[in-house]
């Protein structure tokens, strides 16, 4: 027992100061909400040598001793920080309880089970649980095991925090109605429950406080790692159905509101429709500016990714709806409309859509982003970008974007030695700066058949302020055949991943017999070539997971591409 007394004395002396500071902080904050307290608590423990939010506070109870013995166990301590960076993970003790017979691993017997406690620790950074059995009489850990992707039942204070986060969320309040106030919940006038949930994509700790209203229940998925609401779902009380999780809410929202559902936008003189396709990403169609129809539709039909270190290795990815689709990288969040601000002025607006692989940004997962930028002066820029991370640092991305025009009387001119050269047949070219640019800026222009409007193409040399470094693009001109299978409807994979030349897919609508294209309805295909980079300070088309505030967050280095179409 002298060993135990010595251990307790140590704990009391060395922990006294920290506990006192912590208690003072908590008392000072007693009038503030749980979220603020939680954030302060996290900041505090991440500065501690033990980055752990303890469950049992300093006293001489057996639970406290079990908790401290477990935290001082070398194997437990080895999970407190990331080996590579030395940065701390956020950890929390979720429970300390007397052992039950079912807690014992098969075949294992304990000498004095009355003195053995089960301690559960959750590592928020790794989404991992550490479970230990601690003999407080012998002052040692008698069993230790880790469980990846496993989340123990949360303690009551986290349940209260989840409820608090839900009740503070404007969308939750809006959806439930005015009678959802924290007081009625705490006074039990509103029936509540805490259900389990999963955040499969973020790999975070999530739960679902549920609030009953008449015959319906509102499930609010709360992410206790990021401390935010993930989404809301109404169900009929008493009905069983699929588990309500992050992925279910995300997929349902995207599938119901955007997948093959036309949404209309009229803004700043622009009007268009947009919809999420099953393999061609977000398609924007019927694009008009100030009443003049300009583009029939614009979409990205494929992402080709090739890796130079292994010949022929790569992927042709389609992007699109998360379910019942041909997409390999799927939309999990709705599209967003945002203002474009240059020099403190709003010069237009954009529509963006993101696509994710499960597990991004782990190796061999992908994240793509589409932007459609509509400027107040009639300019339009379809932007496509990769946010890494892919299968290696030797990758080249070649997204294939298809742009079809409204006018049936189009002509195309490419720049050559600062002059315009008209194209009479279907053809392709490789962007070549500066020798094949007009005024060092434009790689081509369209005439639309209307005297007053031309559309000039400003090539991307990295001047658009989005971090892009230039496109070195192949571009193709083909005659628009709406009734043939040339991309008017969703295209399955248009070409192989790993061709290094112009054979990226659109060429098959040109070869072997190019058609005349003068005064025709045209399709412009654009295939930038973007090489990724993972060198420190030069990262491009790249993403990493970095540990911040005890949990992993993605650090991103996007590579955006795309020309700008300028209305003249």
């Amino acid at each position, binding site marked *: 027992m002298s060993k135990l007394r010595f251990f307790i004395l140590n704990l009391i002396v060395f922990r006294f100061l920290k506990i006192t500071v912590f208690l003072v902080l908590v008392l000072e904050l007693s009038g503030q909400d749980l979220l603020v307290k939680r954030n302060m608590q996290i900041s505090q423990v991440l500065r501690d040598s033990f980055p752990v939010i303890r469950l049992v506070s300093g006293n001489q109870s057996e639970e406290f001793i079990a908790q401290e013995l477990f935290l001082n166990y070398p194997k437990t301590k080895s999970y407190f920080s990331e080996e590579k960076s030395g940065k701390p993970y956020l950890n929390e003790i979720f429970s300390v309880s007397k052992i039950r017979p079912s807690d014992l691993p098969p075949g294992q017997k304990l000498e004095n089970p009355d003195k053995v406690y089960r301690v559960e620790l959750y590592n928020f950074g790794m989404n991992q649980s550490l479970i230990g059995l601690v003999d407080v009489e012998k002052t040692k850990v008698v069993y230790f095991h880790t469980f990846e992707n496993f989340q123990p039942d949360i303690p009551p204070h986290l349940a209260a925090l989840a409820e608090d986060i839900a009740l503070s969320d404007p969308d939750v309040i809006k959806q439930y109605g005015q009678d959802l106030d924290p007081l009625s919940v705490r006074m039990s006038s509103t029936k509540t429950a805490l259900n389990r949930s999963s955040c499969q994509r973020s790999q975070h700790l999530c739960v679902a406080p549920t609030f009953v209203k008449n015959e319906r229940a509102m499930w609010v998925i709360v992410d206790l790692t990021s401390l935010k609401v993930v989404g809301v779902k109404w169900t009929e009380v008493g009905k069983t159905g699929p588990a309500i999780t992050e992925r279910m809410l995300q997929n349902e929202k995207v599938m119901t509101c955007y997948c093959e559902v036309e949404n209309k936008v009229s803004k700043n003189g622009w009007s268009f429709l947009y919809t999420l396709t*099953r393999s061609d990403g977000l398609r924007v169609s019927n694009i008009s500016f100030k009443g003049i129809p300009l583009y029939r539709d614009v979409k990205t039909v494929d992402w080709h990714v090739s890796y130079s270190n292994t010949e022929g290795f790569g992927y042709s990815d389609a992007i699109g*709806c998360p379910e019942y689709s*041909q997409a390999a990288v799927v939309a999990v969040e709705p599209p967003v409309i945002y203002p474009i601000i240059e020099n403190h002025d709003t010069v237009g607006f954009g529509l963006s859509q993101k696509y994710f692989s499960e597990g991004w940004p782990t190796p061999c997962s992908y994240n793509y982003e589409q932007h459609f930028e509509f400027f107040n002066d009639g300019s339009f820029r379809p932007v496509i970008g990769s946010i890494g991370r892919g299968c290696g640092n030797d990758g080249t991305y070649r997204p294939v974007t298809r742009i079809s025009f409204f006018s049936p009387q189009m002509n195309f001119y490419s720049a050559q030695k600062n002059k315009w050269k008209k194209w009479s047949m279907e053809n392709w070219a490789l962007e070549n700066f500066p020798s094949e640019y007009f005024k060092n800026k434009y790689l081509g222009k369209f005439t639309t058949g209307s005297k007053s409007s031309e559309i000039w193409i400003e090539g991307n040399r990295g001047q658009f302020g989005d971090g892009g470094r230039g496109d070195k693009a192949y571009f193709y001109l083909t005659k628009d055949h709406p009734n043939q299978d040339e991309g008017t409807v969703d295209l399955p994979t248009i070409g192989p991943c790993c061709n290094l030349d112009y054979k990226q897919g659109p060429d098959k609508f040109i070869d072997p017999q190019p058609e005349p294209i003068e005064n025709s309805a045209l399709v412009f295909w654009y295939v930038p070539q973007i090489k990724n980079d993972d060198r420190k300070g030069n990262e491009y088309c790249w993403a990493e997971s970095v540990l911040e505030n005890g949990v992993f967050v993605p650090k991103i280095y996007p590579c955006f591409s795309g020309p700008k179409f300028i209305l003249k």
Partner: protein
Amino acid sequence: MTYYSIYFQVVFCFVLLHCSNGLDAQSCARTPGYFANLGFDRTRSALSSTERKFVGVVLIELSDVRNLQSERTKLYQHPSWRSAGYVGAIATDQLGNSYILPKPTVNMENNPEEHMHTVYRIDSKTGILDSFVKLPIQFHRSLQNVFGLMGSYYDCETQTLFVSSVAGSNAQQQLGQVYAIDVNTRKTTQILDSTDILGLTLRKELTGDYRLYYGSARESILYSLPLDKNFIATAGPKMEIDINGIGPRGDDRVRKIRFQSDGSMIATGTPFFYNLTPAAINPESNYVFIQNKESGVWELYR
């Protein structure tokens, strides 16, 4: 352990003898004859359908047989093994012949639709992959669903290969089918329709009849269907287990079912949403169930 390893779990569609978490008690799979000439350690080797940088089937030798993510000490691919395109489920018979189902991954480039219902076989003696049976299922080209054959199970006693297809189904409609293929005569018999199935297995009842256990491709539920000796359903499907909310994801579909010699059942779950997300980045979990002797209900053990 790295952060990366949390996600990247290699999917093995068939494991030989010593390379599994536990084989079906009825499994009679024999090591293919062609192994002998390749110099692979058969206790650490398996056929894999999800090796990165490979299209088709690959024979691999693991450095650690207990860890499917461990280093591949040897890899082998016969030229014919690429010809089926990307593949999914693999089942092996008592002679060492392996039956391979095509399954598109990431895109359809390597999996032409006219071959989506061809069952391939790697001959145990020659090690050559060739088409074995083409099922009489019409392939419906659809933007909503590019999949055809999904699950397979070889029954040793009847020498029958069971395969499921989800071809033609969409968000509103299930058109999936299950076929029994007599591997000796190559005769095919449809035993179930209008049902989308990922994983399936057959179990003989004490009465001598059979029960087909199958995991739905659309819900986190495992059903069973009683079959007579001719594999004709004698009653409707019965829900056996519901894995909704269970495991690290809570929305897995059952893609593999194994009965252990101790009577327990292992259901392997993985996400599936009728898209082309590569199987290699979809994590898997095993759920072990034990049947309550009194109620007959399968209860989650771990």
